[in-house]
């Protein structure tokens, strides 16, 4: 996804760049509808997603309710 950046005037400062909306506009249609996994393309992104999104199993330092215990 390409991030939209908007320039806005900040009080007492020059124009600053603000991250715009990050949702996908419109209603996806066809076979790809709902196929969210295509949003991460490269292997690095996929591994990053797994370590973050599937952190319950793959995070190095975060074990949710089990974080006081030794990892499995």
């Amino acid at each position, binding site marked *: 996804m390409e991030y939209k950046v908007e320039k806005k005037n900040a009080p007492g400062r020059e124009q600053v760049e603000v991250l715009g909306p990050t949702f996908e506009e419109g209603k996806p249609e066809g076979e790809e*509808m709902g196929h969210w996994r295509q*949003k991460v393309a490269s292997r690095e992104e996929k591994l990053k*997603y797994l370590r973050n*999104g599937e952190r319950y199993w793959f995070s190095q330092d975060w074990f*949710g309710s*089990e974080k006081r215990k030794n990892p*499995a």
Partner: protein
Amino acid sequence: MAEKEAKSIDLATLEMIDKAAQDGAHVVFERAETTRPCPIGAEGSCCSICAMGPCRVMAPKGKQETLEDRRRRVGVCGATPETISARNFVRKIAAGTASHGDHGRVVAKFFLAVAKGEAPGYEIKDEQKLLQLALDLGVTIGDRSNKDIAVDIGNLMINEFGKQEGELLFLRRAPLKRQEIWRKNGVMPRGIDMEVAEAMHRTHMGTDQDYRDLLTAGVRTALADGWGGSMIATELQDIIFGTPAPVLSSINLGVLAEDKVNIIIHGHEPSLAEMMATVCQDPELIEYAKTKGAKGINLAGMCCTANEMLMRHGVPIAGNFLQQELAIVTGALEAIVVDVQCIMQGLVDTASCYHTKVITTDARAKIQGATHMPFEEHNAYESAKAIVKAAIDNYVNRGKNVRIPKYKQDMIAGFSHETINYLLGGMFRASYRPLNDNIINGRIRGVAAVVGCNNPRTPHDASNLIMVKELIKNDVLVVQTGCMAMASGKAGLMVPEAAKEFAGPGLASVCEAVGIPPVLHVGACIDNSRILMSTTAMVKDGGLGDDISDLPVAAAAPEWMSEKAIAIGQYAVGSGVFTVFGCNFPTTGNKEVSDFLFKEMEEIFGGMWAFEPDPLKAAQLMIAHIDKKRKALGIDKARERVLYDMAMRRALE
């Protein structure tokens, strides 16, 4: 009319039962009337494992049994009613585990063939899931190709079936406390095939004759299903065919088309079905169908193969287990193509009244009187093409006696645990936190899995609907697999709008915010392993205890019929989940065995069985259990929100 309604609550089904009677076709609903269940077998009081019997050891009805009577009420070998009942139960677990295990093995071998490039037409579709398994299993990723990684994963998975010692690899995914409970009770499965073989040995004449020991061993066998064979099948199928994501489709016999060649694929394993979905779009075959007078090819699914195709491609579903013969009764079905499991032999007899071809495709599942067209994975496209062509050729034989019920319903499927995680948190922070938070704050009371089959001994789809509606009305989020998912789909419960109409206000508000139905389609019966993963994610996210048995969750199979369901129930209970079965229960003839399953198992595993044929009462049992867990967690009462000002914050420090 009342008698007819007692057979099903589905209007398409009732219409086709009528048509079958008019056409002189025999279907399951009629056979269930003429063949009554054996009362001795139904309660688990018959032992037929050796040639000294069969021995019947029923408890006397309506009179007190003396000690002497009780001593005499044993098999010829002296096996007590407890031993006999437990052995029968464990044999069902072994058969169910073997079925899911064999499915998993075939998928694992197929996966390895795909990885090695020996199955043309198939590829690794979901790299992310491949990497997920690689991380799980400790397979080196680095700069290696997907194929190399897949070969390592395939070999590790195949090894799980024949392993003789150690622990199954996916058991590491479970909450730590759960693993400790399993180890403490000696039920960590070692190898999938080994657990099935040992269960069959233990239940052989003259081996394990302690019902508690038998039933505990049954937990180990069943865990080899849920955290073994089933999980392997689900995970590897996701890699090859794609991890399910929400997809809109439709369901019921009305998905058949009057002017097209109708093909139904029925069974459980998706490799043929995936290729059929591709082949049916082949322009050459569509043109060929037109030369026969049809306007095209219409592929639909039945049972769990249907679930697999639905959640990955949106292929419509013609119906669930009890509707398989009724699809033929429409007179509009050119071929019913079957693979394995839950395929009634009655299909052939029903088809003899119409033009439908019953085509078996798997070497393990042939049916007398059916046409066998082997599906060869190394030559998948051509195999599938030959099957579709046979169906097209049969179109010209369609008679005039065609009536397709008009009933069909939109539904959304494809809620894998990865997708639920994504839907709740988005790409940047996929999470089960919103689910846990809404359980803690009471908008969602708990989560219930309602799964399993249909059974003509109870009105088709009725128990499921009564149960599911009661659960969501009481703010319990429902997840479903198999034929029960289809029953809810047909009733319009698997669309987001259902939340407003059927769900309690708390659940409805969460469903509306996330944009999901109150009843989530999680997949085929093999995909109950996805539910194990979701519950584990709930535990690991925190705030709801540190084991699956701490969660406010429950499970049910209100219309179960197959041995696979017993295996699933046992691994759910063994994983800490309260599980209610409807229809009948195979240990009701023995109080001691039933007490172990219904009471003692909770002390050992945190989960226990229950039997309640009334679906409303069963739902209330589930809700009561969920409330019990909420109370234990201290989240049973709404707490007043206090907004802290600075002085209060300072006071905290």
